[in-house]
């Protein structure tokens, strides 16, 4: 479903992503791990077609994001890291706008909106203006727009960031549930989340894949049965970068 081959991104002389290749199949939840600045968000932005890769290609459900961006984007639901929203709209108006952008009109659109309002627990705030929402609700509203067209592929950039423990649990359960029928790529800093939700995890550091495997394989690889130890061993610490 998601096929990334030799994906690279250079900003000037700096290489942010270096020849990344991986695939995510239907029914698979791939955790994307790495320290800050490792190239996770840049990779996800390239996968969604928001930024153009310097080299390489991304294929979504058999369609190249570079050659046929409009067609490929129809299959993708994307939750950006900062969960950006139009603050001047109400939650319902925003979801109507997103439904319309996804060509969901009339009854189909209304059903899609009502589904995501249920899925993301937004009933209480549906008529509230977005600028008055708490961080948790903002995140869930943005997640709702990613799910509105029932996409085959979900790209979630730190979907549990800023949520309270209850909300984190709900979102993890949701990702797990959705992962049964979709291909999901999601980034996180929280290593426990990998165990809770992922079938497979990638650790990237300075734009390169440094580990790839199921959570249990990765723990074995650490030698101490700890993902934290493996993460610390394989990634560059900020103090080492100077």
């Amino acid at each position, binding site marked *: 479903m998601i096929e990334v081959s030799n994906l690279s991104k250079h900003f000037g002389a700096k290489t942010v992503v270096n020849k990344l290749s991986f695939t995510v199949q239907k029914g698979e939840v791939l955790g994307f791990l790495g320290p800050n600045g490792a190239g996770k968000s840049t990779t996800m*932005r390239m996968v*969604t*077609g*928001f*930024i*153009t890769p310097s080299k390489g290609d991304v294929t979504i459900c058999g369609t190249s994001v570079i050659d046929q961006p*409009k*067609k490929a*984007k*129809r299959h*993708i639901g*994307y939750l*950006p890291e*900062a969960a*950006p*929203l*139009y*603050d*001047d*709209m109400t939650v319902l108006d925003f979801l109507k*706008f*997103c439904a*319309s*952008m*996804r*060509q969901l009109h009339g009854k189909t659109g209304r059903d899609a909106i009502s589904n995501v309002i249920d899925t993301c627990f937004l009933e209480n705030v549906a008529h509230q203006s977005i600028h008055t929402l708490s961080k948790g609700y903002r995140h869930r509203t943005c997640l709702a*727009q990613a799910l509105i067209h029932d996409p085959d592929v979900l790209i979630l950039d730190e979907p549990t960031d800023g949520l309270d423990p209850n909300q984190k649990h709900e979102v993890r359960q949701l990702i797990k549930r959705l992962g049964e029928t979709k291909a999901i790529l999601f980034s996180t800093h929280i290593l426990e989340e990998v165990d809770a939700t992922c079938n497979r995890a990638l650790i990237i550091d300075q734009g390169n894949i440094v580990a790839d495997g199921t959570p249990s394989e990765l723990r074995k690889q650490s030698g101490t049965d700890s993902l934290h130890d493996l993460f610390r061993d394989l990634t560059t610490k900020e103090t080492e970068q100077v």
Partner: protein
Amino acid sequence: MFTIFKRELKSYFTQPTAYAVICIFLFMSLFLTFTLGNFIKTGDANLEWSFFFWHPWIYMLLAPALGMRLWSDEHRSGTIELLGTFPTTIWSAIVAKYLAAAVVWAIALALTYPVVIAVNTLGDPDNLTIFSSYIGSFLLCCTFLAITCLISAFTSDQVSCLIISCSICVLLVVIGFDHVARALAQSFTEATTNAIVSTAVLDHYQPLLRGSVRIQDLVYFFTIIIACLVSTSAILNAKRA
């Protein structure tokens, strides 16, 4: 494209922006018509000097004030990332957002209808000239709006966008004045001076106020508008490359 257009237009009216711009425009244009424009005293059934003459001066501040959020706001709030991942092209988003801002100005201009009624009640004006003046005024405003749209693609800071856009609009107006042309002639060759002065917006605006719809003036306005929108697209694509 229509979805983005509708959202943008609605957002102008759910926030105070459109109301503020429309009210200030109506107040300023009518105030200047009846004070400095001497509409009543001159006793001329003509809106060229009393009403439309002041529009460039009002637009040079208000058009950037309305347009400064076009892309700056998308950059600042990060919503450009949403727009960029919807199955649509960036070009349709540019056109939709630009048209929504232009429609707000069309509404503002339409609301000056009392002055047309007044001049028809008091005298016997040439209404076709008034119509061509409205077209000129709208094209001028759309030109300033397109310039603002381009500047807003560069920055997420709305204040910088406002200042830079206003400066460019002021420059386009003042280089049409004779004493500016004379000052330029002292520093540049005649050909360069002529080339600079030919970009002045007033030289293309004033014929329309006199009822003369010339191809070269329409080409001038549409060239700037299209060039700015195409450049906006290039800048936004370059930012994502």
